[in-house]
């Protein structure tokens, strides 16, 4: 009985802790909204973050997108061949990439690369008192540090998703048409027939939401770091885990709403 009560007790505490944390992230989001519309916007910081989140993530996103498209074509070929529908591979890869894999894989890769760096950088600024120094100089850290990162996340993840969608379909084309000898005309005809602009738009809206999630979580964890180098490490790990899970959960609900 005592063990059972202790289990309930721990479970209750964990729920409360998580609800409290979700509330704090939401409050940070509202603070970001209020600072994002207050001039002056820190354009230099925004451009710097866009370069970091976007330009510097292109290589990893291209690699991930290309191989995902290639493996989809390869796997699809074996399935579709059973009922002689190999020509549907092009549209399957394109639908899969634009609606689902493009936004999700891109944002997971950006989470690992840029979301973790946001948490580590802000965490390190917290433990070396650089964030306190901003307060002391009557400058708001949310305006200077967090708003540019959130704007960069929301703006750059959809752009990276477009890149990922394109190279994914190109990878599928390469494997489908040149390796598996599917008819090129049918490959493209089925793409244009079955993929609508809405699939692409909705995928990009998802990507923008995921960009918000990964940057908000990365900034929240970094900004609230406690306890020196160990704390920075913990914040970075927690940021990647929480942002990745949140992206996958949000993906389900966004898909349910949009498609």
């Amino acid at each position, binding site marked *: 009985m005592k063990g059972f009560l202790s289990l309930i007790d721990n479970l209750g505490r964990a729920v409360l802790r998580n609800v409290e944390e979700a509330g704090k992230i939401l409050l940070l989001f509202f603070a970001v909204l209020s600072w994002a519309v207050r001039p002056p916007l820190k354009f230099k910081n925004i451009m710097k973050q866009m370069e970091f989140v976007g330009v510097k993530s292109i290589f990893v996103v291209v690699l991930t997108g290309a191989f995902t498209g290639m493996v989809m074509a390869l796997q699809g070929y074996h399935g579709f061949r059973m009922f002689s529908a190999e020509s549907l591979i092009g549209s399957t890869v394109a639908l899969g990439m634009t609606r689902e894999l493009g936004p999700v894989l891109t944002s997971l890769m950006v989470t690992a690369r840029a979301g973790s760096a946001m948490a580590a950088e802000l965490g390190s600024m917290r433990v070396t008192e650089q964030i306190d120094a901003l307060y002391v*100089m009557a400058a708001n850290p949310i305006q200077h540090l967090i708003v540019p990162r959130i704007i960069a996340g929301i703006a750059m993840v959809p752009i990276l998703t477009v890149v990922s969608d394109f190279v994914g379909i190109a990878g599928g084309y390469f494997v489908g048409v040149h390796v598996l000898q599917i008819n090129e005309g049918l490959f493209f005809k089925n793409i244009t027939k079955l993929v609508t602009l809405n699939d692409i738009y909705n995928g990009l809206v998802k990507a923008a939401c995921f960009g918000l999630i990964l940057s908000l979580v990365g900034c929240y964890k970094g900004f609230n770091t406690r306890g020196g180098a160990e704390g920075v490490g913990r914040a970075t790990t927690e940021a990647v885990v929480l942002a990745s899970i949140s992206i996958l959960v949000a993906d389900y609900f966004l898909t349910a709403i949009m498609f």
Partner: protein
Amino acid sequence: MIQLKDIHKSFGAQKVLDGLDLNIEDGQTTVIIGRSGGGKSVLLKHIIGLIRPDSGQVVVDGEDITKLNDKQLNEVRKKFGMLFQEGALFDSMTVGENVSFPLVEHTKMTDEEIRQVVAERLKAVGLTGVEGKMPSELSGGMRKRVALARAIALHPQIVLFDEPTTGLDPVLTEAINQLIIDTQRNLNLTCIVISHDIESIFRVGHKIALLYGGKIIEYGTPEEIRASKNPVLVQFLSGSTEGPIQIM
């Protein structure tokens, strides 16, 4: 004039400040001494509004800053400069960008005017031609000098120093002490210095306050402090392990 009135502050079960009272006089350097982990940095952060007390008042020029909202607090903070223990320079910015940060943020100076002021402030702390360097390229002593240049960039009335000489060799310690004395005198600043270094305490302080058990238990001029028979103060100044200060 800064007045701390009956300040109480706890973190969880740990009581850090327990009814602390202290008056900081204008145009003087007040040194706050006390054992490590005794709440000196917490006290400093109360003075600039980085931490709010559980109860009590922090009065700066007649205004209780514990009652102010963020916007009002920022106006008060423009009177302050602060030199953090490790400098707290922004890693991603050059020395020039660090020192110019408060000027860009709070003045309408042109780029050329800012460049001139940055060069002047750096010269005032004994540095020239370092504007393009990154903080990681500087030695510990140089970082503290740059941080002081940034702290005085906006001509503040009050400058807070959080252990300015910790981790420096004796020569650099003396150089930083002299810098504090010169800066205070030349700009007629009110300085509040936290230090463990006994020589520095008597070198830079017009007034010295001993924080112990969450309260200021001794306050006076360097001569009065030297002459004090307070056993905590005597043990602290002599560095003895015997006495009322318990070693954990």
